[in-house]
C-alpha cells in the first residue's frame, strides 16, 4: 500500500455510477439477443400435493406459443453436488419439473414459451393445472423437532450453572420470515451455441452459478459461461441459483433459440428464497453483578421440504460474550415453504435480535446500564474457538458511541424522557460479523493505451466492488481511477469469490494488489532490459512506478516515463500479472470478526400509538475502510433494513394454500424515506492486518445485525412493552396509554 494514498479511505464516487444512472449498465434481463423467445413460469397454486394433470392444449394453439414445458415432457435434470466450499451450491436443490410433487406454493409447475412476452403471459393464463392438494404445513405455532440438532455448540455445564445462578432469565424471541426483494428481480437469458451454454444472470456468484449449472444440466464446467456484469442488488437471494435458471436453459435448448425467463415480483416471494422464521429460547444465568454464568440458546427454525437450510443462529452465541457455560442448539423443522436462503447477515441477524434483547432484559432486571452489562461480559478472546481475536475494539465502539450519542443523559426509568407529546426511548445493541477471506484469482493488465484493466469472475452486487478494486490498482500504480477498467461478472475471467458473507473485498484485494505488483514488476524489467529505454541497464530493483510513470528510486515521479511509453519500446499491447491468493494462515490462529454498536432513539406518541425512529448512531470496528463513501452507504443502508426488520417486515403465509398473501410492495411493508431520520455512523480505524495487507474487512452485513434489538430495547425504555416477536406493531403498543 502506498504510504500516503490519495484514494484509500477517501470518499470515492462509484466508477460505474454514471453508467447506472444513465441506463448504460446492462443488467442481466436487458440483453436483447437475436431471435429471443420469452418464457413465463407458472407457479403452483397449492402448497402441498401433486400435479394430477396439466392441460396445455388451448395454450399451445395460441398465437406465437412455442412450447409448454412441465414434468411430463422435459429432459432429466440432475441434482447438484451441493457444496458451499466447492462453490457448487444451489438455492433449491430440487431441479424444476423433477416429478409431479408440489412442496410449496409458487413452485414452478410449467413454463410457457412464446415469441413475445405478452403472448407467453397470455398463454400461461390458459394452461390448466389440476392438483391433488393437501393442506400444507406452514404454521409456526407448533415447531416440533424430529431430527437431531443441525448445529450444536457447547462448553462447560450449562444445566448446573443455570440451576445455581442467583439471577435467571428465561425468554423466547421470534423473528418472522423476511423476503429479500432487491430492486432488480431475478431473471435469466439462456442461449446455446452448439454444446456451449451462456447464461445472462443476476448473480452474486457467477462461478458458483456456472458450477451448479454444469452439474444440473450434465455439462462440463468449460461449456457453461455465466455473465452478470451489473446487479440491482441481491441481499443474498442471488448467491445461489434458483430453478428458473435451469428452466430457461432447457427451453432454449429445446427451441434452439435464446430464451428469457424473468421472475415477477410476486414470485420473488416464493421461488428465490427468504430469511426463515426463528423461535429462540434463551435462558441466562448471571451473578448479582450481571456477570454471565450460563447461556442456553435453543433455536427452532423451519426450512423447506426439499432442503436442510440452516440459518445458523447458534454460531454467535459461542463468541459474543465471556461465559464459562454455554450451550447453543438449533433444530430444523420441515415445512411447505420454499427453500430459505441467506439474507443479509444470515444467522447473526436473527440471533443477535435474541441475544442482544436478552442482554437488555438482564440489564433491566439488575438495574445495570445496558452498555455496562456488556462491558462486564466483554469477551477478551473467542471462548468458543479458544483463540485470540485478530483485532477487536468493541469496547471503544461502545465508549465512542455512548459519548457521541449522549447516552449518559439517558434516565433508565421507563417512560421518563419526554419531548412534547412524545416519549423518548433510548436503546443500544452490539453488532458483529465474521471477517473471512476465500480464494481469488485476478488478472491485471497494464495496457498500451495507458489504461489498466483488472478482471476477475467475482461481481459487484451494487455495493461498490468495481470502485474499491480500481482504488487498489490506483493506489499501487498511481494511475488515476478514470484510466482503470475493472471487469467483473463473467466466468470467462479468472475465478473469483461469491459476493456473500461480506468477504469479497477482503478476498479479492490481496489478489489485485499482488497481480498489479506482478504486472508492474514485468514492466520494470522491460524498462531495464530493453535497449533504447531511458532505464537501460538500471537494476529493476532500483526502479519504481508511481503516478503511472516509471522512474528511478529516489527520483520524482514527474521525472519518469509514462508506462505506455515503456510498452511501446517493445511494441507490446500490454503486460499482465495474474495471481491467486488464499485465506491467510492467520485465519487458523485468530478469530476474526468485526464489531460495533448501535445507539437508537425512538419517539413514541402514546395516545395514537405512533412509534418512529428519531435518532441513530452506529459505530463500526470493521478494519480499514477502502472507500468511505461506499462503506458509509453500506452501514446506513443496513440500518434502514434494520428498521424494516424491527418495525415492518413480515412475509405472511396463508394457512390454507401456503401463499405469501402480502407478495407485493404495497402490502409487504419496508421503510420509506419518511420513516428514517438522519442516520449517523462512525468508523473506528483499526486495520486488521492479520486478514490482509490493507487491513480491510467487509462491511456489507454487520450493520444489520443488532439493529432490531436496539429498536426493541428503545421501545421498552419508552413504553415498558418488551416486544419479543418482530416486527413491533401498532397492536403491541396500543396497551400503553
Amino acid at each position, binding site marked *: 500500500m502506498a504510504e500516503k494514498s490519495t484514494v484509500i479511505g477517501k470518499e470515492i464516487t462509484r466508477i460505474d455510477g454514471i453508467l447506472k444512472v444513465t441506463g448504460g449498465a446492462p443488467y442481466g434481463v436487458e440483453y436483447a439477443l437475436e431471435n429471443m423467445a420469452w418464457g413465463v413460469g407458472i407457479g403452483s397454486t397449492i402448497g402441498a400435493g401433486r400435479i394430477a394433470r396439466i392441460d396445455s392444449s388451448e395454450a399451445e394453439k395460441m398465437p406465437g406459443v412455442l412450447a409448454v414445458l412441465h414434468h411430463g415432457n422435459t429432459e432429466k435434470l440432475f441434482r447438484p453436488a451441493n457444496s458451499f466450499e466447492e462453490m457448487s451450491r444451489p438455492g433449491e436443490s430440487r431441479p424444476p419439473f423433477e416429478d409431479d410433487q408440489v412442496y410449496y406454493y409458487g413452485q414452478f409447475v410449467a413454463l410457457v414459451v412464446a415469441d413475445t412476452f405478452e403472448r407467453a403471459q397470455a398463454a400461461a393464463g390458459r394452461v390448466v393445472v389440476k392438483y391433488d392438494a393437501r393442506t400444507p404445513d406452514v404454521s409456526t405455532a407448533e415447531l416440533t423437532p424430529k431430527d437431531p440438532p443441525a448445529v450444536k455448540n457447547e462448553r462447560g455445564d450449562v444445566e448446573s450453572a443455570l440451576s445455581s445462578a442467583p439471577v435467571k432469565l428465561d425468554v423466547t424471541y421470534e423473528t418472522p420470515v423476511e423476503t429479500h426483494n432487491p430492486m432488480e428481480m431475478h431473471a435469466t437469458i439462456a442461449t446455446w451455441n452448439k454444446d456451449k451454454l451462456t447464461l445472462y444472470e443476476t448473480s452474486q456468484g457467477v462461478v458458483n452459478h456456472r458450477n451448479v449449472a454444469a452439474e444440473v444440466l450434465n455439462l462440463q464446467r468449460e461449456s457453461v459461461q455465466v455473465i452478470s456484469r451489473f446487479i440491482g442488488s441481491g441481499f443474498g437471494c442471488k448467491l445461489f441459483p434458483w430453478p428458473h435458471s435451469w428452466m430457461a436453459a432447457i427451453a432454449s435448448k429445446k427451441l434452439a433459440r435464446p430464451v428469457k425467463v424473468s421472475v415477477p415480483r410476486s414470485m420473488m416471494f416464493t421461488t428465490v428464497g427468504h430469511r426463515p422464521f426463528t423461535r429462540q429460547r434463551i435462558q441466562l444465568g448471571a451473578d448479582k453483578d450481571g456477570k454471565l454464568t450460563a447461556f442456553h440458546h435453543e433455536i427452532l427454525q423451519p426450512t423447506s421440504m426439499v432442503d436442510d437450510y440452516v440459518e445458523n443462529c447458534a454460531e454467535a452465541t459461542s463468541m459474543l460474550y465471556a461465559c464459562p457455560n454455554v450451550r447453543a442448539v438449533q433444530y430444523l423443522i420441515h415445512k411447505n415453504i420454499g427453500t430459505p436462503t441467506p439474507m443479509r447477515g444470515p444467522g447473526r441477524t436473527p440471533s443477535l435480535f435474541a441475544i442482544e434483547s436478552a442482554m437488555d432484559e438482564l440489564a433491566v432486571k439488575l438495574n445495570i446500564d445496558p452498555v455496562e452489562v456488556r462491558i462486564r461480559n466483554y469477551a477478551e478472546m473467542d471462548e468458543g474457538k479458544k483463540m485470540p481475536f485478530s483485532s477487536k475494539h468493541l469496547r471503544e465502539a461502545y465508549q465512542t458511541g455512548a459519548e457521541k450519542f449522549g447516552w449518559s443523559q439517558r434516565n433508565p426509568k421507563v417512560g421518563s424522557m419526554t419531548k412534547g407529546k412524545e416519549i423518548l426511548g433510548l436503546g443500544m445493541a452490539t453488532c458483529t460479523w465474521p471477517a473471512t477471506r476465500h480464494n481469488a484469482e485476478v488478472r491485471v493488465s497494464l495496457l498500451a493505451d495507458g489504461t489498466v484493466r483488472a478482471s476477475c469472475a467475482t461481481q459487484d452486487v451494487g455495493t461498490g466492488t468495481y470502485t474499491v478494486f480500481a482504488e487498489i490498482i490506483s493506489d499501487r500504480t498511481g494511475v488515476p481511477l478514470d484510466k482503470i477498467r475493472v471487469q467483473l461478472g463473467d466466468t470467462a475471467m479468472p475465478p473469483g469469490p461469491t459476493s456473500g458473507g461480506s468477504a469479497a473485498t477482503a478476498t479479492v484485494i490481496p489478489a489485485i494488489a499482488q497481480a498489479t505488483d506482478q504486472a508492474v514488476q514485468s514492466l520494470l524489467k522491460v524498462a531495464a532490459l530493453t535497449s533504447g529505454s531511458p532505464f537501460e541497464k538500471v537494476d529493476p530493483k532500483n526502479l519504481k512506478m508511481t503516478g503511472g510513470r516509471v522512474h528511478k528510486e529516489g527520483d520524482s515521479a514527474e521525472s519518469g516515463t509514462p508506462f505506455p511509453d515503456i510498452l511501446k519500446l517493445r511494441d507490446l499491447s500490454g503486460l499482465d500479472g495474474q495471481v491467486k491468493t488464499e485465506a491467510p494462515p492467520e485465519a487458523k490462529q485468530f478469530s476474526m470478526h468485526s464489531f460495533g454498536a448501535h445507539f437508537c432513539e425512538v419517539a413514541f406518541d402514546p395516545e395514537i400509538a405512533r412509534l418512529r425512529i428519531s435518532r441513530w448512531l452506529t459505530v463500526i470496528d470493521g478494519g480499514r475502510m477502502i472507500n468511505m463513501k461506499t462503506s458509509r452507504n453500506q452501514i446506513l443502508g443496513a440500518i434502514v433494513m434494520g428498521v424494516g426488520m424491527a418495525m415492518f417486515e413480515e412475509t405472511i403465509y396463508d394457512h*390454507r394454500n401456503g401463499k405469501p*398473501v*402480502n407478495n407485493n410492495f*404495497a402490502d409487504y411493508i419496508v421503510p420509506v424515506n419518511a*420513516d428514517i431520520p438522519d442516520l449517523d455512523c462512525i468508523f473506528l480505524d483499526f486495520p486488521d492486518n492479520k486478514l490482509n495487507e490493507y487491513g480491510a474487512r467487509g462491511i456489507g452485513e454487520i450493520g444489520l445485525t443488532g439493529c432490531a434489538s436496539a429498536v426493541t430495547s428503545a421501545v421498552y425504555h419508552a413504553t415498558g412493552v418488551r416486544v419479543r416477536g418482530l416486527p413491533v406493531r*401498532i397492536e403491541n403498543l396500543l396497551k400503553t396509554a
Partner: protein
Amino acid sequence: MYEFQYTKANDVGQAVSSVAPSGSKFVAGGTTLIDLMKLDVERPKLLVDINGLPLDRIEPAGDGGLKIGAMVRNSDLAHDEKVQRMYPVLSQALLSGASPQLRNMATTGGNLLQRTRCYYFRDVNYPCNKRTPGSGCSAMDGFNRIHAVLGTSQHCIATHPSDMAVAMIALGATIFVTGSKGEHSIPITKFYLLPGSTPDHENVLAPGEIITHVTLPPPAQNAKSHYLKRRDRASYEFALASAAVIVELDGRKISKAQVAMGGVGTIPWRSPEAEHALAGAEASERNFRRAAEAALRGAKAHKDNGFKIELAKRTLVRALQTVTQA
C-alpha cells in the same frame, strides 16, 4: 392477462354509449383497473378510455361550494389553492394516500370507485364473494389484519381503502352521474352500499353510468377540518384507521361536527353517532372519547384486526383535539 378491446371517448355522450355493452369499463388513471386486470380480477372486454373527456376542471359552484371534475387528478386536487383553503381535510386526505406517482395518475372518479385491497379479492384462486358471488369469503378465516370492523357482514369484511372518499363523505359531497337514466345526482352518503349478502354491489351506480363531477357544499364560516391517518409506516400505505373531521366551534362549544372514518369500514364510514355525541358538547378530551366510543360501538373484530377498534378511537380523538386546538 387476456385480450380486450380499447377505445377512446371524446365526449361524455360517446363515453356512455361506448360503454353500454356489458363487460365494458371506463379507464381513467388506470391505477386500480389495470392493476386488477393484470391479476385477472377485472376482465373487461372493452376499455373505454375517458382521459380525453373535458372533466378536468375545479371550479366554484353556484352555491359557494366547489365543483370537481371526475378526471381531476388527485395531485391537482390536493394542491389546488381553493381546496387547501376551503377544505383542508380533503387536501390532507389526498396527500396521505398512495405515492406522488400514483396521485399524478389517479382521478377523482377513479378514486371513489377504487376496489378493496383484500388479499383474497386480488387472487382469483381464492373464494371471494365480492369477486365471485356465492363462492365464500377467504378473509373470514384468513389473515385479516387490514380488514374492516364496521359495516361488515358474514359475506364480506373488506375495507373500502380510499382516503379521499372519507374526506368527501365527511364533507357531504354530491356525486353527479350520467347514463341510461340521464343526468342525476347522488349524495355520497347514499352512494356506497354495505356488503350485506351482495358484496359485489359496491355502489348505486347503474351499469354504464359515468361520474362526471363531484360537488362540495360551501364550508361554514367558522369550520375547521382535519384528516389523520394511522398506518404501519409513515407514508405510502393504506390506512389501518383514519379520521376526517369538520368541526364548527362556538367558543369551546361544538356547534356542529361532521365525522368520518377510514380503514375500518366496508365503505367510507360517516358516523352520525359520533356527530350526535359531539353536537352541543364542550370540546374536551372526555367528550371526544365519548364520541369515539359511539362511533365504534357496533364494531366487530375478526382474528387479526381487533386492534383497529381502539386505534380508530384514538385516531378520532386526536383528530378532534387537533381541529379544536385554539
